Protein backbone atom coordinates (compact mmCIF):
# COMPACT_ATOMS: atom_id res chain seq x y z
CA UNK A 1 0.00 0.00 0.00
CA UNK A 2 1.26 3.52 -0.73
CA UNK A 3 1.66 6.37 1.74
CA UNK A 4 -0.07 8.95 -0.45
CA UNK A 5 -3.17 8.56 1.70
CA UNK A 6 -1.47 10.25 4.65
CA UNK A 7 -1.01 13.46 2.69
CA UNK A 8 -4.62 13.29 1.53
CA UNK A 9 -5.69 12.74 5.11
CA UNK A 10 -3.89 15.83 6.30
CA UNK A 11 -5.88 17.82 3.74
CA UNK A 12 -9.02 16.76 5.58
CA UNK A 13 -7.78 18.58 8.65
CA UNK A 14 -8.31 21.85 6.83
CA UNK A 15 -12.01 21.12 6.32
CA UNK A 16 -14.66 22.39 8.71
CA UNK A 17 -14.87 20.00 11.65
CA UNK A 18 -11.78 18.02 10.62
CA UNK A 19 -10.98 14.37 10.34
CA UNK A 20 -7.77 13.03 11.80
CA UNK A 21 -5.57 10.81 9.65
CA UNK A 22 -4.96 7.14 10.32
CA UNK A 23 -2.35 7.21 13.13
CA UNK A 24 -0.12 4.67 11.38
CA UNK A 25 0.68 2.94 8.08
CA UNK A 26 -1.86 0.50 6.63
CA UNK A 27 0.47 -2.39 7.47
CA UNK A 28 0.83 -1.45 11.16
CA UNK A 29 -1.71 -3.87 12.61
CA UNK A 30 -1.00 -6.90 10.41
CA UNK A 31 -1.55 -9.77 10.75
CA UNK A 32 -4.30 -9.10 13.28
CA UNK A 33 -5.87 -6.55 10.96
CA UNK A 34 -4.58 -6.63 7.42
CA UNK A 35 -3.47 -3.67 5.36
CA UNK A 36 -6.33 -4.45 2.99
CA UNK A 37 -8.85 -4.12 5.80
CA UNK A 38 -7.31 -0.87 7.03
CA UNK A 39 -7.34 0.65 3.57
CA UNK A 40 -10.99 -0.19 2.91
CA UNK A 41 -12.01 0.65 6.47
CA UNK A 42 -10.29 4.04 6.62
CA UNK A 43 -10.38 5.15 2.97
CA UNK A 44 -13.92 3.99 2.15
CA UNK A 45 -15.96 3.64 5.33
CA UNK A 46 -14.44 6.21 7.70
CA UNK A 47 -13.69 8.72 4.95
CA UNK A 48 -17.12 8.06 3.42
CA UNK A 49 -18.91 9.20 6.59
CA UNK A 50 -16.73 12.32 6.67
CA UNK A 51 -17.48 13.15 3.03
CA UNK A 52 -21.21 12.70 3.56
CA UNK A 53 -21.24 14.91 6.63
CA UNK A 54 -19.15 17.56 4.89
CA UNK A 55 -21.48 17.57 1.87
CA UNK A 56 -24.51 17.85 4.16
CA UNK A 57 -22.92 20.72 6.09
CA UNK A 58 -22.10 22.53 2.86
CA UNK A 59 -25.51 22.10 1.26
CA UNK A 60 -27.96 22.17 4.16
CA UNK A 61 -26.34 22.69 7.55
CA UNK A 62 -23.69 25.39 7.61
CA UNK A 63 -24.25 25.55 11.36
CA UNK A 64 -22.42 22.23 11.71
CA UNK A 65 -19.07 23.81 10.90
CA UNK A 66 -17.27 24.48 14.13
CA UNK A 67 -19.50 22.09 16.11
CA UNK A 68 -17.86 19.50 18.31
CA UNK A 69 -18.52 15.82 17.82
CA UNK A 70 -20.16 15.80 21.27
CA UNK A 71 -22.73 18.24 19.90
CA UNK A 72 -23.19 16.52 16.55
CA UNK A 73 -23.87 13.04 17.97
CA UNK A 74 -26.94 14.45 19.72
CA UNK A 75 -28.04 16.61 16.77
CA UNK A 76 -31.73 16.89 15.91
CA UNK A 77 -31.06 15.09 12.61
CA UNK A 78 -30.46 11.35 12.82
CA UNK A 79 -28.33 11.60 9.67
CA UNK A 80 -25.92 13.98 11.45
CA UNK A 81 -25.85 11.79 14.58
CA UNK A 82 -25.00 8.76 12.45
CA UNK A 83 -22.25 10.28 10.33
CA UNK A 84 -20.67 12.23 13.20
CA UNK A 85 -20.89 9.23 15.52
CA UNK A 86 -19.17 7.02 13.00
CA UNK A 87 -16.42 9.59 12.28
CA UNK A 88 -15.70 9.93 15.99
CA UNK A 89 -15.97 6.21 16.77
CA UNK A 90 -13.63 5.17 14.00
CA UNK A 91 -10.98 7.69 15.04
CA UNK A 92 -11.20 6.39 18.62
CA UNK A 93 -10.92 2.83 17.30
CA UNK A 94 -7.69 3.48 15.35
CA UNK A 95 -6.19 5.08 18.43
CA UNK A 96 -7.32 2.12 20.58
CA UNK A 97 -4.95 -0.10 18.61
CA UNK A 98 -1.23 -0.18 17.92
CA UNK A 99 1.29 -2.45 16.24
CA UNK A 100 3.23 -2.40 19.51
CA UNK A 101 0.11 -2.89 21.62
CA UNK A 102 -1.32 -5.92 23.32
CA UNK A 103 -0.31 -7.39 26.64
CA UNK A 104 -1.92 -5.96 29.72
CA UNK A 105 -2.45 -2.48 31.12
CA UNK A 106 -0.27 -1.26 34.00
CA UNK A 107 -0.56 1.26 36.81
CA UNK A 108 -3.79 2.86 37.96
CA UNK A 109 -5.89 1.55 35.05
CA UNK A 110 -4.74 -2.02 35.65
CA UNK A 111 -5.63 -1.71 39.33
CA UNK A 112 -9.07 -0.31 38.51
CA UNK A 113 -9.77 -3.09 36.00
CA UNK A 114 -8.88 -5.65 38.67
CA UNK A 115 -11.09 -3.84 41.17
CA UNK A 116 -14.14 -3.46 38.94
CA UNK A 117 -13.96 -6.78 37.04
CA UNK A 118 -12.13 -9.08 39.45
CA UNK A 119 -9.17 -9.54 37.13
CA UNK A 120 -7.88 -8.49 33.73
CA UNK A 121 -8.73 -11.98 32.44
CA UNK A 122 -12.33 -11.60 33.54
CA UNK A 123 -12.56 -8.14 31.92
CA UNK A 124 -11.07 -9.50 28.70
CA UNK A 125 -13.56 -12.41 28.60
CA UNK A 126 -16.51 -10.15 29.15
CA UNK A 127 -15.34 -7.65 26.53
CA UNK A 128 -14.75 -10.38 23.96
CA UNK A 129 -18.12 -11.96 24.75
CA UNK A 130 -19.79 -8.58 24.19
CA UNK A 131 -18.18 -8.25 20.76
CA UNK A 132 -19.29 -11.76 19.85
CA UNK A 133 -22.79 -11.27 21.17
CA UNK A 134 -23.54 -7.87 19.64
CA UNK A 135 -26.36 -8.40 17.17
CA UNK A 136 -26.15 -6.33 14.02
CA UNK A 137 -23.78 -3.40 13.63
CA UNK A 138 -22.24 -1.71 16.63
CA UNK A 139 -19.33 -1.08 18.96
CA UNK A 140 -18.03 -2.41 22.25
CA UNK A 141 -16.40 0.01 24.68
CA UNK A 142 -14.59 0.13 27.95
CA UNK A 143 -16.00 3.29 29.52
CA UNK A 144 -15.54 5.09 32.79
CA UNK A 145 -18.21 6.91 34.74
CA UNK A 146 -16.79 10.38 35.35
CA UNK A 147 -18.64 10.82 38.64
CA UNK A 148 -18.07 7.54 40.46
CA UNK A 149 -14.95 6.56 38.45
CA UNK A 150 -16.29 3.05 37.88
CA UNK A 151 -15.31 1.13 34.73
CA UNK A 152 -17.89 -0.73 32.65
CA UNK A 153 -18.22 -2.54 29.34
CA UNK A 154 -20.76 -0.84 27.11
CA UNK A 155 -22.25 -1.85 23.77
CA UNK A 156 -23.53 0.79 21.37
CA UNK A 157 -25.62 -0.04 18.33
CA UNK A 158 -25.03 1.22 14.79
CA UNK A 159 -23.37 4.67 15.20
CA UNK A 160 -24.08 4.93 18.91
CA UNK A 161 -21.34 6.44 21.04
CA UNK A 162 -20.66 7.03 24.75
CA UNK A 163 -19.79 10.67 24.08
CA UNK A 164 -23.51 11.28 23.69
CA UNK A 165 -23.52 11.02 27.49
CA UNK A 166 -21.39 13.79 29.03
CA UNK A 167 -20.92 11.59 32.10
CA UNK A 168 -19.03 8.85 30.25
CA UNK A 169 -15.34 8.73 29.36
CA UNK A 170 -14.47 6.20 26.68
CA UNK A 171 -11.26 4.24 27.33
CA UNK A 172 -10.99 1.87 24.33
CA UNK A 173 -13.32 0.66 21.62
CA UNK A 174 -13.67 -2.30 19.26
CA UNK A 175 -15.64 -1.94 16.03
CA UNK A 176 -18.15 -4.79 15.72
CA UNK A 177 -19.61 -3.78 12.34
CA UNK A 178 -19.02 -6.63 9.87
CA UNK A 179 -16.86 -4.43 7.62
CA UNK A 180 -14.31 -4.28 10.47
CA UNK A 181 -13.53 -8.00 10.38
CA UNK A 182 -15.06 -9.63 7.33
CA UNK A 183 -11.97 -9.46 5.07
CA UNK A 184 -9.72 -11.06 7.69
CA UNK A 185 -12.07 -13.23 9.74
CA UNK A 186 -15.18 -13.69 7.61
CA UNK A 187 -18.02 -14.62 10.00
CA UNK A 188 -15.67 -15.54 12.87
CA UNK A 189 -16.28 -12.50 15.04
CA UNK A 190 -15.12 -14.26 18.24
CA UNK A 191 -11.72 -14.93 16.62
CA UNK A 192 -11.49 -11.23 15.70
CA UNK A 193 -12.42 -10.25 19.27
CA UNK A 194 -9.67 -12.49 20.60
CA UNK A 195 -7.10 -11.13 18.16
CA UNK A 196 -8.04 -7.52 19.00
CA UNK A 197 -6.46 -7.98 22.43
CA UNK A 198 -3.07 -8.57 20.75
CA UNK A 199 -3.09 -4.95 19.55
CA UNK A 200 -4.92 -2.93 22.21
CA UNK A 201 -3.08 0.32 22.84
CA UNK A 202 -2.97 0.43 26.64
CA UNK A 203 -0.97 3.69 26.55
CA UNK A 204 -3.92 5.38 24.83
CA UNK A 205 -6.27 3.73 27.32
CA UNK A 206 -4.20 5.01 30.26
CA UNK A 207 -4.33 8.56 28.87
CA UNK A 208 -8.15 8.37 28.74
CA UNK A 209 -8.50 6.93 32.23
CA UNK A 210 -9.45 9.39 34.97
CA UNK A 211 -7.38 8.53 38.02
Amino acid at each position, binding site marked *: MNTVKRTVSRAFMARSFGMPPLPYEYSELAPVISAETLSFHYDKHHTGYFNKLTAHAESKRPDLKGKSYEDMVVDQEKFVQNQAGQIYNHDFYWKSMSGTGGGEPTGALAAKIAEDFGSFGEFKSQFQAAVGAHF*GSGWVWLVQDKLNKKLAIMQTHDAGTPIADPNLQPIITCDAWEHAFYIDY*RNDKPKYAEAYFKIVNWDFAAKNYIA
Partner: protein
Amino acid sequence: MAATFSLPPLPWPADSLASKGMSAEQIDFHYNKHHKGYVTKLNAAAEKRPELRGKSVMDLIQAKDATYNLASQIWNHTFFWNCLSPNGGGAPTGAAKQAIERDFGSFDKMKKQFSDAAGGHFGSGWAWLVQDKNNRLKVHQTHDAGNPIPDGLKPVLTCDVWEHAFYIDYRNDKAKYVNSFWNMVNWDFVNAQLANSRL
Protein backbone atom coordinates in the same frame (compact mmCIF):
# COMPACT_ATOMS: atom_id res chain seq x y z
CA MET B 1 -31.98 -35.24 20.24
CA ALA B 2 -33.57 -34.36 16.89
CA ALA B 3 -33.32 -30.71 15.90
CA THR B 4 -36.55 -28.77 16.11
CA PHE B 5 -35.70 -26.19 13.48
CA SER B 6 -34.14 -27.04 10.16
CA LEU B 7 -32.17 -25.18 7.53
CA PRO B 8 -34.00 -25.34 4.21
CA PRO B 9 -31.72 -26.22 1.28
CA LEU B 10 -30.64 -23.54 -1.17
CA PRO B 11 -33.01 -23.52 -4.17
CA TRP B 12 -30.08 -23.79 -6.63
CA PRO B 13 -26.41 -24.86 -6.66
CA ALA B 14 -24.18 -22.50 -4.67
CA ASP B 15 -22.08 -21.62 -7.73
CA SER B 16 -25.01 -20.93 -10.04
CA LEU B 17 -25.27 -17.18 -9.36
CA ALA B 18 -21.57 -16.45 -9.88
CA SER B 19 -22.01 -15.26 -13.47
CA LYS B 20 -24.71 -12.85 -12.24
CA GLY B 21 -22.50 -11.35 -9.54
CA MET B 22 -22.87 -13.48 -6.42
CA SER B 23 -19.89 -15.80 -6.03
CA ALA B 24 -19.93 -19.32 -4.68
CA GLU B 25 -17.74 -18.18 -1.78
CA GLN B 26 -20.16 -15.36 -0.91
CA ILE B 27 -23.08 -17.79 -0.90
CA ASP B 28 -21.14 -20.50 0.95
CA PHE B 29 -20.33 -18.24 3.91
CA HIS B 30 -23.72 -16.58 3.89
CA TYR B 31 -25.66 -19.84 3.84
CA ASN B 32 -23.38 -22.27 5.71
CA LYS B 33 -22.13 -19.89 8.38
CA HIS B 34 -24.68 -17.11 8.89
CA HIS B 35 -28.02 -18.73 7.93
CA LYS B 36 -27.02 -22.13 9.33
CA GLY B 37 -25.57 -20.44 12.41
CA TYR B 38 -28.96 -18.92 13.28
CA VAL B 39 -30.58 -22.36 12.97
CA THR B 40 -27.94 -23.94 15.21
CA LYS B 41 -28.43 -21.24 17.84
CA LEU B 42 -32.21 -21.51 17.72
CA ASN B 43 -31.99 -25.27 18.21
CA ALA B 44 -29.69 -24.68 21.19
CA ALA B 45 -32.34 -22.37 22.64
CA ALA B 46 -35.02 -24.99 22.02
CA GLU B 47 -32.98 -27.54 24.00
CA LYS B 48 -33.33 -25.28 27.03
CA ARG B 49 -36.92 -24.19 26.35
CA PRO B 50 -39.24 -27.07 25.49
CA GLU B 51 -42.06 -24.65 24.72
CA LEU B 52 -40.23 -23.64 21.52
CA ARG B 53 -40.47 -27.12 20.09
CA GLY B 54 -43.28 -27.59 17.63
CA LYS B 55 -43.36 -23.88 16.84
CA SER B 56 -42.54 -22.45 13.43
CA VAL B 57 -40.06 -19.60 13.09
CA MET B 58 -43.02 -17.38 12.07
CA ASP B 59 -44.77 -18.33 15.35
CA LEU B 60 -41.72 -17.05 17.23
CA ILE B 61 -41.60 -13.87 15.13
CA GLN B 62 -45.30 -13.12 15.70
CA ALA B 63 -44.95 -13.84 19.43
CA LYS B 64 -41.95 -11.49 19.70
CA ASP B 65 -40.23 -14.32 21.51
CA ALA B 66 -36.80 -13.83 23.08
CA THR B 67 -35.49 -15.76 20.05
CA TYR B 68 -37.02 -13.23 17.63
CA ASN B 69 -33.66 -12.24 16.12
CA LEU B 70 -32.69 -15.82 15.36
CA ALA B 71 -36.15 -16.84 14.09
CA SER B 72 -36.52 -13.76 11.93
CA GLN B 73 -33.07 -14.06 10.39
CA ILE B 74 -33.83 -17.71 9.55
CA TRP B 75 -37.11 -16.71 7.88
CA ASN B 76 -35.64 -13.68 6.12
CA HIS B 77 -32.70 -15.60 4.68
CA THR B 78 -34.88 -18.44 3.40
CA PHE B 79 -37.09 -15.85 1.71
CA PHE B 80 -34.02 -14.08 0.29
CA TRP B 81 -32.57 -17.20 -1.36
CA ASN B 82 -35.93 -17.82 -2.99
CA CYS B 83 -35.96 -14.26 -4.33
CA LEU B 84 -32.87 -15.10 -6.37
CA SER B 85 -32.45 -17.47 -9.30
CA PRO B 86 -29.82 -18.34 -11.88
CA ASN B 87 -32.64 -17.89 -14.41
CA GLY B 88 -33.76 -14.65 -12.83
CA GLY B 89 -33.34 -11.01 -13.69
CA GLY B 90 -34.90 -8.96 -16.46
CA ALA B 91 -38.23 -7.22 -16.15
CA PRO B 92 -41.13 -8.29 -13.94
CA THR B 93 -43.80 -10.48 -15.48
CA GLY B 94 -47.49 -11.21 -14.92
CA ALA B 95 -49.23 -9.84 -11.86
CA ALA B 96 -45.96 -8.39 -10.53
CA LYS B 97 -45.53 -6.32 -13.68
CA GLN B 98 -49.07 -5.00 -13.44
CA ALA B 99 -48.91 -4.22 -9.73
CA ILE B 100 -45.51 -2.52 -10.03
CA GLU B 101 -46.68 -0.33 -12.93
CA ARG B 102 -49.87 0.51 -11.09
CA ASP B 103 -48.24 1.37 -7.76
CA PHE B 104 -44.93 2.89 -8.89
CA GLY B 105 -45.61 4.05 -12.45
CA SER B 106 -42.89 1.85 -13.89
CA PHE B 107 -40.41 -0.89 -13.03
CA ASP B 108 -37.57 1.65 -13.30
CA LYS B 109 -39.23 3.83 -10.68
CA MET B 110 -39.72 0.90 -8.31
CA LYS B 111 -36.17 -0.26 -8.96
CA LYS B 112 -34.80 3.19 -8.09
CA GLN B 113 -36.83 3.45 -4.87
CA PHE B 114 -35.91 -0.07 -3.79
CA SER B 115 -32.23 0.43 -4.68
CA ASP B 116 -32.13 3.74 -2.79
CA ALA B 117 -33.68 2.05 0.25
CA ALA B 118 -31.22 -0.83 0.09
CA GLY B 119 -28.23 1.41 -0.55
CA GLY B 120 -29.27 4.00 1.99
CA HIS B 121 -30.05 1.66 4.85
CA PHE B 122 -27.78 2.59 7.77
CA GLY B 123 -26.36 -0.40 9.61
CA SER B 124 -27.64 -3.95 9.16
CA GLY B 125 -31.05 -4.64 7.65
CA TRP B 126 -33.25 -5.60 4.73
CA ALA B 127 -34.95 -3.83 1.84
CA TRP B 128 -38.37 -5.19 0.90
CA LEU B 129 -41.07 -4.87 -1.66
CA VAL B 130 -44.26 -5.44 0.33
CA GLN B 131 -47.99 -5.41 -0.21
CA ASP B 132 -49.77 -3.29 2.36
CA LYS B 133 -53.24 -3.75 3.86
CA ASN B 134 -54.78 -2.11 0.80
CA ASN B 135 -52.86 -4.50 -1.45
CA ARG B 136 -50.67 -1.68 -2.74
CA LEU B 137 -47.00 -2.40 -3.32
CA LYS B 138 -44.54 -0.33 -1.33
CA VAL B 139 -40.80 -0.28 -0.67
CA HIS B 140 -40.09 -1.00 2.99
CA GLN B 141 -36.96 -1.27 5.15
CA THR B 142 -36.40 -3.30 8.27
CA HIS B 143 -33.44 -2.92 10.60
CA ASP B 144 -31.26 -5.77 11.87
CA ALA B 145 -33.49 -8.90 11.90
CA GLY B 146 -36.79 -7.07 11.34
CA ASN B 147 -39.60 -8.88 9.49
CA PRO B 148 -42.53 -6.98 7.92
CA ILE B 149 -45.27 -9.58 8.52
CA PRO B 150 -46.22 -8.65 12.10
CA ASP B 151 -46.79 -5.09 10.84
CA GLY B 152 -49.45 -6.37 8.45
CA LEU B 153 -47.21 -6.13 5.40
CA LYS B 154 -46.88 -9.04 2.98
CA PRO B 155 -43.35 -9.41 1.62
CA VAL B 156 -42.98 -10.18 -2.10
CA LEU B 157 -39.24 -9.45 -2.57
CA THR B 158 -36.25 -8.83 -0.32
CA CYS B 159 -32.58 -7.88 -0.53
CA ASP B 160 -30.25 -8.56 2.40
CA VAL B 161 -28.16 -5.46 3.16
CA TRP B 162 -26.23 -6.77 6.15
CA GLU B 163 -22.56 -6.32 5.22
CA HIS B 164 -22.00 -10.09 5.31
CA ALA B 165 -24.35 -10.35 2.29
CA PHE B 166 -21.95 -8.52 -0.02
CA TYR B 167 -18.58 -7.89 1.59
CA ILE B 168 -16.76 -10.86 0.01
CA ASP B 169 -17.76 -9.83 -3.53
CA TYR B 170 -18.19 -6.08 -3.28
CA ARG B 171 -16.36 -4.90 -0.15
CA ASN B 172 -17.90 -1.49 0.72
CA ASP B 173 -19.59 -1.05 -2.68
CA LYS B 174 -23.15 -1.78 -1.60
CA ALA B 175 -24.57 0.11 -4.60
CA LYS B 176 -22.80 -2.26 -6.99
CA TYR B 177 -24.15 -5.25 -5.06
CA VAL B 178 -27.71 -3.90 -5.19
CA ASN B 179 -27.29 -3.31 -8.92
CA SER B 180 -26.29 -6.97 -9.38
CA PHE B 181 -29.30 -8.09 -7.33
CA TRP B 182 -31.60 -7.05 -10.17
CA ASN B 183 -29.87 -9.57 -12.47
CA MET B 184 -31.02 -12.40 -10.24
CA VAL B 185 -34.54 -11.51 -9.14
CA ASN B 186 -36.85 -14.49 -9.38
CA TRP B 187 -40.06 -12.91 -10.70
CA ASP B 188 -41.83 -16.29 -10.56
CA PHE B 189 -41.30 -16.30 -6.81
CA VAL B 190 -42.46 -12.68 -6.53
CA ASN B 191 -45.62 -13.62 -8.45
CA ALA B 192 -46.17 -16.62 -6.18
CA GLN B 193 -45.99 -14.32 -3.13
CA LEU B 194 -48.49 -11.93 -4.69
CA ALA B 195 -50.84 -14.85 -5.32
CA ASN B 196 -50.45 -16.28 -1.79
CA SER B 197 -52.87 -15.30 0.92
CA ARG B 198 -51.39 -13.42 3.85
CA LEU B 199 -49.76 -15.23 6.74
